[in-house]
């Protein structure tokens, strides 16, 4: 069991920084931020804790609690993507994970997701932000049909409309 844990931990510890950099990098800040995991007790790892810390691009070190809402969300997304990559399920469903993100971070997320989707994973993302869903290949529009007292959906393949 300790081996299983270490195997998962090593994998995540190894890829978290790259994922966080890919997610947070920008044209004017090509390096992105810094992210790392650390074990509180290397002897009995699964009994003690695992600490997660990040430094957003061009910011100094502060504890996770003092990061802003958007900065915490970007950190959390990197961690989720790292967890997912350990046993990558063929699809990934995310519900309004962009709620706390400003337009700049939304487009960073969109760019990262597009890149991952083209490689291997089918992404299904629920979002209220046009700054995110304008980058999707397909849309599922969900609406409430009042007369029938029911939810209904309409699927649209956006790639048909690309010139």
């Amino acid at each position, binding site marked *: 069991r300790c081996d299983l844990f270490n195997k998962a931990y090593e994998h995540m510890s190894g890829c978290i920084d790259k994922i966080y950099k890919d997610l947070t990098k920008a044209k004017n800040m090509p390096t992105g931020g810094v992210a790392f995991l650390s074990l509180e007790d290397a002897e009995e790892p699964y009994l003690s804790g695992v600490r997660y810390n990040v430094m957003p691009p061009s910011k100094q070190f502060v504890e996770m609690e003092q990061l802003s809402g958007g900065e915490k969300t970007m950190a959390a997304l990197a961690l989720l993507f790292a967890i997912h990559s350990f046993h990558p*399920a063929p699809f990934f469903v995310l519900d309004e*994970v962009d709620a706390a993100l400003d337009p700049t971070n939304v487009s960073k997320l969109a760019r990262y997701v597009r890149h991952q989707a083209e490689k291997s994973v089918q*992404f299904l993302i629920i979002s209220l932000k046009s700054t995110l869903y304008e980058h999707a290949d397909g849309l599922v529009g969900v609406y*409430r049909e009042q007369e029938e*007292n029911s939810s209904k959906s309409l699927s649209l393949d956006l790639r048909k409309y690309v010139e």
Partner: protein
Amino acid sequence: MPLKRLELYNFKSYRGTQIIDLGDAPFTCIIGPNGAGKSNLMDAISFVLGVKSAQLRSTQLRDLVYRGRKAAQMDNDEAMDVDEEAGETLTQTENGTDARSAWVQAVYEDENRKEWKFRRNISTVGVSTYHLNSKAVPWTAYNQQLEKFNILVKAKNFLVFQGDVEGVASQDSKALARLIDRIS
């Protein structure tokens, strides 16, 4: 793309039979107004893969069965009776009374382009049953096939529910250790 379409029957706010086509778009967004039924769609995906109802904003399976009457034909005091137990009333939903059973079917396409149908029912007595390619199977067989596709329901490392994302970063070190333990 692996998840080709979802077929719902009386699931949460989706009355009767509804087909949600996911096509072969690698990156799909689900959009619509507040309360339309977007998160209920994610609940349907989680449900058909065997996730427990507690995670789906429901204390019991029965809450997942469509409840409602033709809203246009109701006056106000009738509206207040609508939350009667879905299990005790008639089956038809077409004439506007409550449903008794529900199911969700996910159509999955593997690497060889073969289709697999995963279906989970809620029976009239509020019990889950599973069908793989239209044949009744026990949960262990259903889950085994999902695991072959790298869908590990226990780990849930491919589902992020509404409101949960920030907590992933703020969780304390012990919780994160348990999370890594669970996915290993």
